[in-house]
């Protein structure tokens, strides 16, 4: 079994206008940088992007927004991006805001063949409008639907040709659940390793969830909020 493709360009073959994509990452942490760059170059447009955030003006999904390749964002928080604001206010960009935990669980559900589940998040708010409400244990819950995508694009630390993935630190975030929910899942990794190098016990995403894998050319791994403390004298 060999799921390795040469590069980002080859990995994103088949992504077409008006498709739905999931993209891993939280802020700029753990985003598939190389695949995003390749998507910008294809000029594919009309995309619905399911991603917790929308990048910043000149990095991450912001690059696709700049080129107006995104029709709709499905996210929990989109606040760091002037171009995003402009497109949203002008009505060019549709935005579907989803509570972060419901977003994560809806992706996992999509990957796990659970079409719908009940959650308390959002009950009594505008998020619940039009959704079924039901009491469990004396507490109201709303019914949320699974999310899937034509392509899921995730970024891992290491991976092998079977598609097994290992993530590093909080760059894990949405990547594993989105990997489960893509009809085709593309994984870009910092390092491709030989099968057997990853301990079967410590694999975060089993290869069954990944259809294509490649080693990214380079990783900028930009930090959004560099926050430090000073060493005391």
């Amino acid at each position, binding site marked *: 079994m060999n799921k390795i493709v040469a590069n980002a360009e080859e990995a994103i073959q088949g992504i077409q206008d008006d498709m739905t994509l999931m993209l891993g990452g*939280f802020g700029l*942490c753990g985003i598939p940088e190389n695949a995003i760059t390749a998507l910008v170059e294809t000029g594919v447009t009309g995309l619905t992007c399911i991603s917790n955030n929308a990048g910043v003006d000149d990095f991450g999904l912001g690059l696709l927004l700049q080129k107006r390749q995104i029709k709709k964002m499905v996210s929990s928080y989109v606040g760091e991006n002037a171009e995003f604001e402009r497109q*949203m206010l002008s009505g060019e960009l549709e935005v579907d805001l989803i509570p972060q*935990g*419901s977003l994560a669980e809806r992706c996992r559900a999509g990957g796990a063949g659970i079409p719908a589940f009940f959650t308390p998040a959002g009950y009594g708010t505008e998020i619940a409008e039009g959704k079924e409400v039901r009491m469990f244990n004396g507490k109201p819950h709303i019914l949320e639907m699974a999310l899937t995508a034509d392509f899921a694009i995730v970024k891992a630390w290491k991976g092998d040709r079977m598609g097994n993935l290992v993530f590093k630190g909080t760059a*894990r975030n949405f990547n594993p659940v989105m990997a489960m929910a893509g009809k085709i899942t593309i994984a870009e990794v910092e390092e491709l390793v030989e099968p057997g190098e990853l301990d079967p016990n410590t694999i975060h995403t089993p290869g069954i969830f990944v259809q294509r894998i490649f080693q990214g050319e380079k990783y900028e791994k930009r930090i959004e909020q560099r926050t430090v403390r000073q*060493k005391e004298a």
Partner: protein
Amino acid sequence: MLDRNSIAKRIAQELQDGWYVNLGIGIPTLIANYIPEGISVEFQSENGILGMGPFPFDGEEDADLINAGKQTITAMSGASIFDSATSFAMIRGQHIQLTVLGAMEVAQNGDIANWKIPGKLVKGMGGAMDLVASADNIIVAMMHTNRKGKSKLLKRCSLPLTGVGCVKKIVTNMAVLDIVEGGFKLIERAPGVSIEEIIAATEGHLIVEGDIPEMTF
């Protein structure tokens, strides 16, 4: 009147040994600086870490280690990392003993609004709706009034809600209040703040029973 740090310090007194705690952005983040001695708590950040430590020293930042505010952080010994679904399993499954977050408005029935102002740009609710709908124990940390001097403790929220009937306690620059049947019950006053001042700054129904002590630090 308390400053932001003192609000955080007062809330820190509520911490109990062994608790898992989720701190929102803003004043709640400051609470980590005031953990009482002899108390050990673990901080969860909903982007996927338990055992969040202080900010890194200059030059030691790791792009792969951030908190939910996207700030660079460190991990304590004994920390664990997990995906977003597992993170919210902890939150939704009530494994977190205390959630502290900011608010634009709190109503006397425990409703909270902190994510959207009609007519203004909406950035999203992030994890706030999951946190408030799930947590057994929520403390709101905020100023008693907004920049225009209007009370943020209301009979009913005027802004779109984040959650209903979920806030249990509020610590403001003026007071500590519990949400009880019927309204905001005044528990403590900030040093030098009178009951009258608190009444004047509270639009919702304020319950004042017996002596109201000043906060001690």
